[in-house]
């Protein structure tokens, strides 16, 4: 039946060609590491302090290592945008000499020496002569490398709950000798969060919400930082049952779930808004669209487990309960 005879003189060459093509595809596919799914398991920064006020201090970090600081750190390299924000919030920002490329808040953080976030160059870090390097989940594999080079590294897993953020702030306060400032920041945050939740005391079941990360419908499950905020605000995340942290829902699933509020975390990149959402096939009759409750959210704030999460929480609360938060 099949008598399609092919001249195959160039076979080795072509095999090599295919291998090369495959290799390059694999390379591209490896970029998957950058997907939002790279966040860690929900563990609060599990660090305990020992020693009292003053230095030297020894702190056990998330890697189980005992980190000893002989004196208050003066040259800090922070490789996490959230940690950088915390350091500035507790008043020790002037000691941050280097930070990762995504650390852009506050403005002063943007002006420190920059290192890569996903693969920071140890040489660049050494050149800054730091007495403390703060590394987080993303750089876990490199912690040992940095320590072997003689740097003092504090490793902590980034928080995935609001409580976890408080712990991160306390931890960094302890580490830098800013205990009371850290306690103040946490107390201020707690107060604002309490103000939010107390206004929701009468809410039995909040609105169904779809939190859109990309226009092809990646969203957050409950096991993420944002998911935990939504839960705290009593909203019903339509992706609650998804098996991954950052699942991609089918359009049909979103439409069938009929969210009452759509939060657009992708708005700043894509200019999505109520009109574009309403124009999507099948979205026009969704409750959120009919009631014009499609709201843009700045997820730079919401996705960083730092002091500004309360801002994000307030913005989300306003979008979910406009009548309660005028």
């Amino acid at each position: 039946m099949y008598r399609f005879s092919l001249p195959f003189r160039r076979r080795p060459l072509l095999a090599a060609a295919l291998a090369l093509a495959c290799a390059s595809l694999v390379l591209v596919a490896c970029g998957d590491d950058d997907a939002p799914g790279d966040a860690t398991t929900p563990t609060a920064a599990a660090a305990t302090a020992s020693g009292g006020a003053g230095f030297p201090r020894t702190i056990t970090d998330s890697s189980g290592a005992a980190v000893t600081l002989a004196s208050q750190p003066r040259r800090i390299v922070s490789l996490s945008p959230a940690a950088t924000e915390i350091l500035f919030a507790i008043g020790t920002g002037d000691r941050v000499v280097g930070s990762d490329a995504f650390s852009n808040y506050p403005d002063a953080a943007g002006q420190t020496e920059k290192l890569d976030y996903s693969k920071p160059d140890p040489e660049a870090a050494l050149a800054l002569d730091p007495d403390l390097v703060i590394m987080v989940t993303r750089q876990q594999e490199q912690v040992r490398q940095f320590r072997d080079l003689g740097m003092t590294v504090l490793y902590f897993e980034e928080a995935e709950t609001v409580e976890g953020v408080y712990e991160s702030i306390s931890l960094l306060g302890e580490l830098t000798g800013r205990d009371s400032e850290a306690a103040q920041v946490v107390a201020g945050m707690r107060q604002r969060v309490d103000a939010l939740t107390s206004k929701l005391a009468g809410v039995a079941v909040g609105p169904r919400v779809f939190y859109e990360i990309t226009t092809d419908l990646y969203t957050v499950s409950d096991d993420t930082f944002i998911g935990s905020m939504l839960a705290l605000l009593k909203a019903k995340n339509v992706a609650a049952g998804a098996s991954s942290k950052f699942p991609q829902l089918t359009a049909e699933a979103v439409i069938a779930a009929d969210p009452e509020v759509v939060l657009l975390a992708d708005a700043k990149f894509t200019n999505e808004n109520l009109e574009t959402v309403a124009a999507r096939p099948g979205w026009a009759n969704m409750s959120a669209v009919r009631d014009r409750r499609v709201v843009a959210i700045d997820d730079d704030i919401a996705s960083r487990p730092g002091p500004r999460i309360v801002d994000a929480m307030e913005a989300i609360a306003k979008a979910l309960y406009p009548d309660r938060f005028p």
Partner: protein
Amino acid sequence: MSIEATPRPRPAVGLGRRRRLATAGPLALCTGLLVAVAALSLTQGAASIPPGTAIAFVLNRLPLIHIGVEAPASWETIVVDVRLPRLLAAGVVGAALAYSGAAYQGVFRNPLADPYLLGVASGAALGASIAIVSPLESSSYEFGWVPLLAFAGAALAVLLAYGFAQSGRTVSNTALILAGIAISSVASAITSFILLTGGDRAQPILSFLFGSFNTASWTRLVVGAPYLLGGAAVIALHARLLNVLQLDEEQAAQLGVDVARSKVILLAAASLVAATAVAMAGVIGFVGLVVPHVTRMVFGGDYRRLLPLAALLGASFLIGTDVLARTLLRPQEVPVGIVTAMVGGPFFLYLLRVRRIGGFR
């Protein structure tokens, strides 16, 4: 092109009566398969809608058909505005990839050829990446900047590959393939770079690299259709020429075929079809490589029959794999490009084993 003068038809080039007669059966078979898979696709999804109701919604859109249906309004929206365009997009793209893949394999007389051989996929991915990380306004649902730059990238990659491989008026297949690989590597490297440095903003690039029909819309179908149909028509008109090209190039030339010119026309048309498909749905692998082979194994290598059958089977295959993509992790989505390889690979290996196909000596 006077290929009518073929003196002694060989099996693969045969224009005899017996072969011509055998076209109707396979066509009916493949069309039947397509209809069955399409019906399956309409009745499956995250929302539990009774199959009969789903089919009725679609049939009601046809003239002169009125089936009484009592169901929530959202069901009709889901079936007609979400499932139907998605089904059509998967079908159209599957057909386009298989069709252009068959043409590529025919032109290169090489079983490893696929529609991405000359850089269509990597060029499109690069174009899409640039559109995604740039401040250009883009909505996934319309034919915005992402598909536009994807299409431009694909076209540019093929033109570059052809330009580099050309020497004088002729282009050797080997030079073309190598140039295509080199262009693809460069484009993929730049895409990876953008992906690594683009932060959160670059995330949708991954979706493009795996392909998806989650944002299928009527707009996209309507904008893409003219390019697909135009390119496919050109290839269809050259189906006999593809048969002749299966001979040695010298022999084909002796039969009065302008080999260099035919190659340009066929490659341009096939690349246009593939580029449009990739712009519409992202990079979906495997379909363009394997579906033409399967078609050839089952129905033989005459391109006049192979091309339409490959298109029908490609449509069925991609609609079917997209059903899995939508339902395997319901309500989540699995990138369809992953499913095509997971499902298609083992099936293809099985066919290889059972049919012991001729081209793979």
